């Protein structure tokens, strides 16, 4: 965790609100890629590892991942006020914009230039998400399961959801329970090897 030495904190709840507003406004076709870059690289509020862990929690729980993520990061710094500020920043101004677009859309939806621009932006947005996944992948080097096991669970998830199109509601608990069990066993055997008291079964 060499990164953690350089970590910073948001100045205030207002800082959280403004930062998340700006971050959300850059997120066309999904906020996740921008969130990773702004929060880990630019602001340095969380490490890649922490970002990935919070995202994992956000994905397992129902609801929009990036909103869950904003809420959890805000709460970590300033409690419920921070959670409100971060989530509010993520949603308030984008909500105004999306409503304005809803009015315009009816007029311009059939325009071939608009349709083309949206198609091109969609192609880039897909790439942003893939690139973010590749950037976060090195965080798995510290994973107690080891890289080959991580790769196996990742590959299983990809095949089941992307290729076989099984619903996430089944894949996530299924593969997730298996992965968490393996992780639990590896962490325990490591603790035993290091001579931790066996009473710590939590």
């Amino acid at each position, binding site marked *: 965790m060499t990164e953690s030495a350089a970590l910073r904190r948001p100045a205030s709840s207002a800082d959280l609100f403004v930062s998340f507003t700006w971050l959300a406004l850059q997120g066309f076709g999904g906020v996740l890629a921008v969130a990773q870059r702004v929060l880990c690289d630019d602001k340095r509020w969380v490490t890649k590892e922490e970002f*990935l862990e919070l995202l994992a929690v956000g994905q397992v729980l129902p609801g*929009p991942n990036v909103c869950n993520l904003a809420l959890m990061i805000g709460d970590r710094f300033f409690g419920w006020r921070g959670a409100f500020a971060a989530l509010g920043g993520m*949603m308030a101004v*984008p909500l105004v914009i999306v409503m304005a677009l*809803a009015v315009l859309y009816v007029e311009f939806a059939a325009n071939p230039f608009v349709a083309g621009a949206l198609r091109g*932006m*969609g192609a880039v947005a*897909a790439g942003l998400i*893939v690139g973010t996944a590749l950037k976060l992948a090195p965080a798995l080097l510290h994973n107690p399961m080891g890289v080959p096991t991580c790769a196996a669970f990742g590959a299983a998830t990809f095949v089941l959801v992307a290729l076989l199109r099984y619903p996430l509601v089944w894949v996530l608990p299924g593969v997730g329970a298996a992965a968490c069990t393996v992780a*639990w066993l590896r962490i325990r055997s490591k603790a035993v090897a290091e001579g931790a008291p066996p009473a710590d079964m939590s």
Partner: protein
Amino acid sequence: MTLSPEASTWLVVFGHFLVLSLLAVGGAISVAPEMHRLMVGQLGLLTDAQFNASIAIAQAAPGPNVLFVAVMGYQAGGWMGATATLLGIMLPSTTLAYAAARWGHARAHWRGVQAFKAGMTPITIALLLVTGWILTVDTPGVAHFAVTALAAILVWHTRIHMLWMILAGAVVGVLGWV
């Protein structure tokens, strides 16, 4: 006190969305088929075209994709509709996320919590790749794929601002290259 028929309709919608919120693993878009069944089929508040437009508009706009739910509510019933759908979809999931994050953070040293994080992180990365994959294969074309691949490499290895990349994508699209 009696409610007007309109207000009671929105209470029904609000109640349904409260339940859908807790089923929306993977984001609100994963329960879009259920929303369609309710809003278009059962209650007849929206047409098919309005429903699809709601999703398209939110994808074109900056910000979280969940905002499509507000557009849907607005198209069906103005501000009252937007409030019912957006509050309904957000309240339960955010409350749960807040409680879960606090619970987990306070017990970060527990072996079970550590195992959960270690077990779920490879799956989380895989799901990001899945999202990119699905967005790409659903729109065929070599040029489309090339734009996606280039954007992925640029995000991975450079610090070029993402707005420039999105803008370049829009330009390429307007020129009809993808």
